[in-house]
């Protein structure tokens, strides 16, 4: 039997869609954990990234951070937190936030850094205050990269939240981990299929967010380059 | 042969048709009487040197390996190719110590020289140059142009050079092809005749309104009848000098040293004030300004020197710096008049226009690309 047939059979069964272990509940849980972590990470990393990109100080830190963070084993971090902090909210929240911060930070930094010097100069020449330049020129021009950073972080957060089921978290990963433990492959396949679909849905959501947030002129410029 | 014209006139495209970087829609190009379209493009190009504006040196190879590229490509041994590279570095006046360096370590002017050396490495009979000196500053450009002329004196290659700079075209070209916007030829001629007899208003406009004076650069300074009686060595006494000045009727005398190198001007008014027995060696002299070389400079250079001089007289020297004579506006006038009168004028304008218009309508330049021409 192929993966798809396993998954499809499992998904079709009516009882999957009801109750506290039902699919809708798990989807919402997954989105909840992911969304919360992303939000917290963004609240930390966006201002920090913009500030560093704007002032140019601390750049060395950012540069090396980007390189090193990819080496962090997600499963390892989750398990470490669980053992040190017990099975509490922090044990999954901290790793998710920690893994989400670098892409948001680096992209925000690069985005602001890459704003054309001439643009900032012209804005200053027109009489804008430093804050106005930041908010009306630098951030909008950096917005494509900023959104990209959030989108990348979202990929990692959704994926890591799946793995976090290993340390007791709910969400779609639950099906995979429980299924593996009980050796029920259809459940594992169903969970995997759902997670994959969710991940794609999140990406589509970000495409829409980009359309809303990023000014039209910039979107077109990025496409033509 | 120099192709010159405004931007977008097709001069670069025409050049690139010669080594088949671009293929013409109509017409043929013959190299040594053979249609280049018969040849394999890659092989064809190995026999044609190509120099471009930003050199296009391989950043990942050393200078000597860059120059040795085509020889290696056609199968010379590494030893022989590198040796050739060193010869060429010498030819283009590059310090041999640069051989193992990389392009990014050289200046723009140096990189261009490497570009020229690279193009000449396999000793191709034809050399194509596309705005080779446009990307460097004016001083470097002038010296590169001089070097090109110098190299050409040794090598006698067929060179086709594209430039948007008319001065460069006139300075460097044996023949100049002026393009109209849109790609047709306006006039093909030697620089002197081009300046003397533009075939139409477009050409005249392109040449600019000082072409009369620019044309003087084609007349040799040796045509001048220089004044020699007003040249006196500094051991002459003031009394002697006064006598010379009175005999010649000129207000200024040129004082030279024992080697006959110029020292400066002295006016007759000053001579009156000095003690008769003193020699000129201690006398106050006015600077002699810019000199011109009688054997190798042009009437234009002589005129320029005269205009710049405070005394309205210029000093003509031999190649070793020794004074030959002095010129004044009068003498210049005579020489210029004689030169212009004897040079061919209006009758040839018809000829050159006819040559230009036969090339109209096609995008390939048959006649101008033939390898029958012996020089640029």
């Amino acid at each position, binding site marked *: 039997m192929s993966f798809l047939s396993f998954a499809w059979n499992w998904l079709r069964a009516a009882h999957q869609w009801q109750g506290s272990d039902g699919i809708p509940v798990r989807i919402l849980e997954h989105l909840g954990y992911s969304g919360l972590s992303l939000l917290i990470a963004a609240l930390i990393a966006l201002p920090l990234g913009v500030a560093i990109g704007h002032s140019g100080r601390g750049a060395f830190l950012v540069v090396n951070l980007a390189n090193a963070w*990819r*080496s962090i084993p997600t499963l390892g971090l989750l398990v470490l937190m669980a053992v040190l902090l017990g099975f509490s909210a922090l044990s999954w929240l901290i790793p998710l936030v920690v893994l989400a911060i670098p892409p948001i930070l680096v992209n925000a930094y690069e985005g602001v850094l890459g704003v054309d010097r001439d643009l900032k100069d012209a804005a200053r020449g027109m009489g804008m205050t430093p804050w106005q330049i930041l908010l009306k020129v630098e951030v909008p021009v950096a917005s494509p990269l900023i959104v990209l950073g959030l989108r990348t972080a979202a990929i990692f957060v959704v994926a890591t939240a799946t793995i976090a089921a290993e340390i007791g978290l709910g969400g779609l990963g639950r099906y995979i981990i429980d299924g593996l433990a009980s050796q029920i492959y259809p459940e594992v396949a169903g969970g995997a299929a759902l997670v994959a679909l969710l991940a794609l849905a999140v990406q589509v959501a970000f495409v829409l967010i980009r359309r809303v947030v990023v000014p039209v002129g910039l979107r077109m410029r990025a496409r033509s380059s | 042969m120099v192709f010159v014209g405004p931007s977008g006139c097709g001069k670069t495209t025409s050049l690139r048709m010669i080594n088949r970087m671009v293929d013409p829609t109509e017409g043929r190009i013959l190299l040594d009487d053979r249609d280049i379209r018969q040849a394999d493009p890659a092989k064809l190009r190995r026999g044609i040197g190509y120099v471009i504006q930003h050199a296009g040196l391989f950043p990942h190879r050393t200078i000597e390996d860059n120059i040795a590229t085509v020889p290696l490509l056609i199968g010379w041994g590494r030893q022989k190719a590198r040796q050739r590279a060193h010869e060429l570095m010498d030819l283009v006046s590059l310090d041999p110590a640069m051989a193992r360096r990389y392009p990014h370590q050289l200046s723009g002017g140096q990189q261009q020289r490497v570009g020229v050396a690279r193009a000449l490495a396999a000793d191709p009979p034809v050399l194509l140059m596309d705005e080779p000196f446009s990307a460097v500053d004016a001083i470097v450009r002038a010296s590169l142009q001089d070097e090109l002329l110098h190299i050409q004196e040794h090598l006698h290659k067929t060179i086709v050079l594209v430039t948007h700079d008319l001065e460069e075209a006139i300075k460097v070209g044996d023949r100049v092809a002026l393009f109209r916007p849109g790609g047709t030829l306006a006039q093909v001629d030697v620089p002197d005749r081009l300046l003397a007899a533009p075939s139409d208003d477009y050409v005249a406009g392109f040449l600019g309104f000082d072409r009369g004076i620019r044309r003087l650069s084609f007349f040799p300074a040796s045509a001048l009848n220089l004044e020699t009686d007003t040249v006196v060595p500094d051991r002459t006494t003031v009394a002697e000098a006064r006598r010379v000045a009175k005999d010649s009727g000129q207000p200024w005398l040129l004082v030279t040293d024992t080697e006959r190198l110029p020292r400066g001007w002295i006016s007759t008014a000053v001579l009156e004030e000095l003690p008769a027995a003193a020699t000129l060696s201690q006398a106050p002299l006015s600077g002699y300004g810019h000199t011109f070389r009688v054997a190798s400079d042009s009437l234009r250079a002589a005129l320029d020197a005269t205009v710049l001089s405070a005394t309205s007289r210029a000093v003509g020297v031999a190649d070793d710096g020794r004074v030959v004579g002095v010129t004044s506006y009068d003498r210049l006038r005579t020489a210029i008049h004689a030169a212009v009168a004897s040079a061919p004028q209006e009758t040839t304008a018809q000829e050159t226009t006819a040559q230009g218009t036969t090339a109209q309508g096609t995008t390939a330049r048959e006649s101008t690309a033939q390898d029958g021409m012996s020089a640029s």
Partner: protein
Amino acid sequence: MIWSYIPANAALIRQLTIENAVLGIVPAVLGLIIAVPVGIACVRWGWLYPPVLSSTSVLYALPSLALFIVLIPYTGLTDTTVIIPLTLFSLCVLVPNVVDGLRSVPEPVRQAATAMGFGALRRLVQVELPLAIPVIIAGLRVATVSSISLASVGQLIGVSSLGYLFIDGLQRDFPTELYVGFVMVIILALAADLVLVLARRLLTPWQRRDARAELRVSVRPGTLGEGVVR
């Protein structure tokens, strides 16, 4: 932290490290081998690039665990089940880098090569690829580090790697084992990164030497945020 754990289990740790290394390096290398021709094709036939890029973007968004699971009916619980998805992830990173690297060759250089009589293949091999090396290696660094790290997730489906120390440490509630696993993955990944940086240095003697620039990361807009690590 119980230090005696380390010497007591040195053999195990070494074995797991080697397994993890293989699971991380093989996908990166396979990814490179596939990405280079694909990238060359995308440069040669520009219309290929947008669909290829879209496909890799979609692929990259999928969680690694899900992809491992998708393969189980076909390749069982073997190393291959982990290697294939990680190879695909490496491809997602490497194809844009190969394309960017080739496109970064300055136009005058390419023109000069053609004009000197280099055929298209020779030009590719002798001029364009060598000049693309820095950008390609940047992508290879990202692919290798990510693969080494993600390989440990394979432990969840029983494919042996340093991830074993995580699962075992969790079950035994034994932090020391976790620390060891965590640190070893990071060391392994960063060591691989360093080797690649040195390789780049060796392969590109013509590049300017600038210590800061060597480790620099810059993000190429339009990719999935996988920065081009230069």
